[in-house]
């Protein structure tokens, strides 16, 4: 087992938390029963790493086998790196006939054409997602397994999620993806976050959505906190309509856990109390960043508690509507009011 494989294994062991060690190794399945018995999982991680290194030496494992272990761990816990969403555009006619083996072969061959030394591993996960691990090299050096890129693609959807990709390598990956999925172009979807499940659910709208209805009366029974009957009587209707609007704008139930949203504002300053600034020609430049452990939940609470008024027409509702969390707002771009949904009758 060469040095790079050893280093890779040490790094993987550092990353895997202690309680996940046994299940991950079992899933890997490359240790014999006797070897598995000999690993005492109550020891310190350092001791376990040494033991595992010895076992891998014994089994004469190569880097290829070690990367399998890393991939298993990342598929189980995708939340420790930043994910960026990309969207494929302009499908060709046979886009729906792309199936897994064809995609795999095409992707590998296209990427290998573009860059000589690259190590690709493709795996299909149970939930229809295709996971790709790419270790990049160049014409002179072997693939660097310590800085791999992970790509997740759901076949039959135009969305691709990638981690850590340098700007030099991005066009190569984009080209390979476009050719193998039978689309014509790929663009940045302006959505990024730590939790892969969150950004995937947001883009593919896999959370409970609420559509505008004319008679939302079942809602009134849900609010059980009757602290003061008179106040509740006054406020009940207002509160119910606020809740309804909040749910229409952001969704119901558990919302995808986005962590942040960034808006780059380059609009003119308009304030009727301040004539000088309103007459100014240049844009008022500022950047606003919203951050929270669960951003959409916070925004929905802002809307339902009245801190945010008219949530449907504000820029904040564009996050779930367009599935993005990076926006550049200028005076020429269409305002959010043009996206109000038509009520369904």
């Amino acid at each position, binding site marked *: 087992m060469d040095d790079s494989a050893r280093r890779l294994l040490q790094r993987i062991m550092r990353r895997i938390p202690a309680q996940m060690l046994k299940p991950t190794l079992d899933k890997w399945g490359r240790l014999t029963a006797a070897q598995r018995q000999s690993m005492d999982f109550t020891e310190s991680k350092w001791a376990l790493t040494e033991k595992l290194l010895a076992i891998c030496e014994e089994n004469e494992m190569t880097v290829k086998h070690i990367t399998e272990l890393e991939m298993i761990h990342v598929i189980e816990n995708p939340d420790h790196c930043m994910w960026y969403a990309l969207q494929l555009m302009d499908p060709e006619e046979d886009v729906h006939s792309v199936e897994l083996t064809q995609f795999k072969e095409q992707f590998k061959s296209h990427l290998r054409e573009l860059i000589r030394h690259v190590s690709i591993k493709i795996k299909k996960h149970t939930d229809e997602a295709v996971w790709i691990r790419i270790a990049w090299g160049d014409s002179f050096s072997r693939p660097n397994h310590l800085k791999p890129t992970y790509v997740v693609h759901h076949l039959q959807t135009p969305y691709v999620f990638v981690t850590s990709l340098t700007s030099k390598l991005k066009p190569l990956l984009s080209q390979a993806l476009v050719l193998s999925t039978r689309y014509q172009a790929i663009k940045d979807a302006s959505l990024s976050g730590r939790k892969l499940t969150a950004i995937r659910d947001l883009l593919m709208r896999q959370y409970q959505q609420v559509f505008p209805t004319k008679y939302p009366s079942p809602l009134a029974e849900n609010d059980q906190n009757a602290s003061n009957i008179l106040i509740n009587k006054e406020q009940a209707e207002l509160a119910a309509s606020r809740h309804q609007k909040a749910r229409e704008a952001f969704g119901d139930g558990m919302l995808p856990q986005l962590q942040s949203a960034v*808006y780059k*504002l380059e*609009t003119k*300053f*308009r*304030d009727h*109390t*301040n004539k*000088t*600034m309103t007459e*100014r020609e*240049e844009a*008022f*430049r*500022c*950047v*606003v*960043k*919203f*951050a*929270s*452990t*669960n*951003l959409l*939940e*916070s*925004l929905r*609470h*802002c809307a339902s*508690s009245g*801190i*945010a*008024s*008219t*949530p449907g*027409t*504000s*820029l*904040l509702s564009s996050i779930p509507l367009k599935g993005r969390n990076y926006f550049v*707002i200028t005076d020429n771009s269409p305002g959010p009011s043009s996206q109000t949904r038509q009520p369904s009758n």
Partner: protein
Amino acid sequence: MERLQSSVVRTPPNSTVVQRRSKSYRQSYRSCLGAPSRLGLTPGLTARRLNSSRRALKSHVITVSHTNPSLTIFYVLLNLQRETLNGHVFYPVLFLLKEKVNPEHLALLVKTEWRLSYVTPLHQFRHTQLKRYSRQLSAFIAAEKQQGVAMEVEGSQSGFRVSFSVVQGLAATDDDAETVLIQIYSTPVFARQDEPQKSVWSGWLTCINGNPEYLESLPKGFTCLPLFGGSGAEVLTSLVKSWFQRTFDCCFGPLEINHTSLQWLAALWTNCHTESNLQHLKMIWTLPVVPPLQVTYTVNPQDAWELWMSVRKDRLERTEEEAEAGSIDIEEVVRFVQGLKSHFYRHFRLDLSAGNLNQVSTTLGSAKSSGKIKISNSRYMITTLTLLTECALLKMPI
């Protein structure tokens, strides 16, 4: 020494009025400001207020080299009239050259983030006895260590050396006591003979532009150094504070920077954009939703400055008095921040007043509502410390 024009106190229009209960019969700080009833407090009549207007932020160049560093303080008033882009002339800028402040002290003050507290007046504190205080404090720390107070500070096996020093040149008026700087050094455990000691804790006590009526009303024997800043291990901070409390019969308390002061700092720093590039004006708000939402609002410095100037221009056009031109009023500060909030509201329909302003930062410094301040540019140290001294004096219970 000619006193600078004192800030004009005006009744602020609305929300800067804060009420406080006090049963003290001694002339308290608040009684120097207004005309409260000595017999108790009728809410609504007595109000504790921050100064509602201040001098424009002057840049005190306090490190200029001086041929005669010992004595002479001289003032050079340069009335510079500058033209803005629109051809408007604005207020004259004053430069003051003072005696040199020790550059080492200055470097220490500028590069650290300080946790602030207020201090009640110290009884029998002598600036001439600093060496004795240094010895007493080191002995105190050693004694506490022996008693078993948990000390996780590095180098706890060797002794601590304490050094008290006076920072000359920061006091703005005759009434201000000189700033005192305290540093605690420790020798690392495996140090060689000639290795210099590492500073593990530093702190200072200061009073800059303290309210003169209050300072004069203090009984003899009391020194007022109401603002305390410390940086380093929390254990050492509490030891230093308890030593001060025992020796000088004073009281320490946490000093938060409330949103009015943060707004003042935002406006005062924006005011300096032409002199030193701010690079950005960043404000952090927290909205009280579940889970809490943090909004970071970063404004381009040039645009922030133009907004500030437009607010000032409106007010300057309305006042005729020339003397007012150099001072900034609380109304302007409030209108400036209100303008920023309304721009935000126009886009997001979120009223930032529903949240708390937690932090304001620019390249000139950063201030957090939890009571942490960092002054990154020595030129604006005096004015920032003046504001903080005022906050400390207001928060003091006596």
